[in-house]
């Protein structure tokens, strides 16, 4: 009993830390004027999200999050920002325009709408969940699901990645015809 409650307290502490880091770095991405700092804040956001995935016993997704996002995608972002050059932009300067006021109102409306929909649909039933067995979320289990139940999604994902790679090459290729 004491061990269980101690574990509960530890999980709560980790959750509060990761959740706060997640929200704060999300706001930082949107509000920094230098794109370089925004990209660095997004790395923090992705790392704290990986901690939340681990708390939800999604081990493989957490590892893939760190490898794919923080490892590959963010390095590509940083390269492109360094290539284009940091362009400062002050989103909150010059007083509120109708566009910024409308954007804040729309984002707040989306947030309230999601919260209300979730609370109305499944308010009390989401409060506690049962334990899962030990294999839930492990790489072997994910791989078995990918190659049995979700084989079509797996194959279509590979085609989507291939098409995106071809598109990136075509957009980035330096030809004399387009110049």
């Amino acid at each position, binding site marked *: 009993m004491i061990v269980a409650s101690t574990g509960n307290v530890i999980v709560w502490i980790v959750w509060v830390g990761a959740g706060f880091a997640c*929200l704060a770095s999300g706001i930082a*991405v949107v509000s920094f004027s230098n794109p370089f700092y925004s990209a660095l804040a997004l790395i923090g956001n992705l790392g704290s999200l990986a901690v939340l995935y681990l708390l939800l016993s999604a081990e493989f997704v957490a590892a*893939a999050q760190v490898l794919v996002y923080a490892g590959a995608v963010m390095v590509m972002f940083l390269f492109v920002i360094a290539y284009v050059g940091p*362009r400062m932009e002050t989103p909150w300067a010059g007083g509120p325009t109708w566009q910024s006021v409308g954007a804040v109102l729309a*984002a707040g409306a989306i947030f309230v709408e999601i919260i209300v929909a*979730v609370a109305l649909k499944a308010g009390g039933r989401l409060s506690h969940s*049962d334990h899962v067995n030990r294999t839930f979320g492990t790489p072997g289990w994910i791989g078995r*699901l990918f190659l049995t139940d979700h084989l079509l999604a797996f194959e279509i994902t590979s085609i989507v990645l291939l098409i*995106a790679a071809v598109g990136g090459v075509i957009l980035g290729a330096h030809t004399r015809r387009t110049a």
Partner: protein
Amino acid sequence: MLGPGIAWYLGIAAFLFATGALGVLIRRNPIIVLLSLEIMLNGGNLALIAFSRHARNGAGQIFALTVMAVAASEVCVGLGLVVAINRRRLALDVDRLSELRG
């Protein structure tokens, strides 16, 4: 399940989605618009994984991994567009890139 319930994770997911939507609407640098899109996709991913844990069903995690692959594709094409725009000496400002306006 130790710690907070699924509803708390869904709250974080909703906040992340709203923050990303705010960034997409308010920023004019296309690179930061792409970064905000990543935040929106990650909010969706967090909700998917939370529901997967709640239902004890692996389909949510498979869906989250597929969303990550789609996000990587989107970043690939989006950054290719940014590089192409920059090479043509056009302004990196989504409000001024309006040549296709009818």
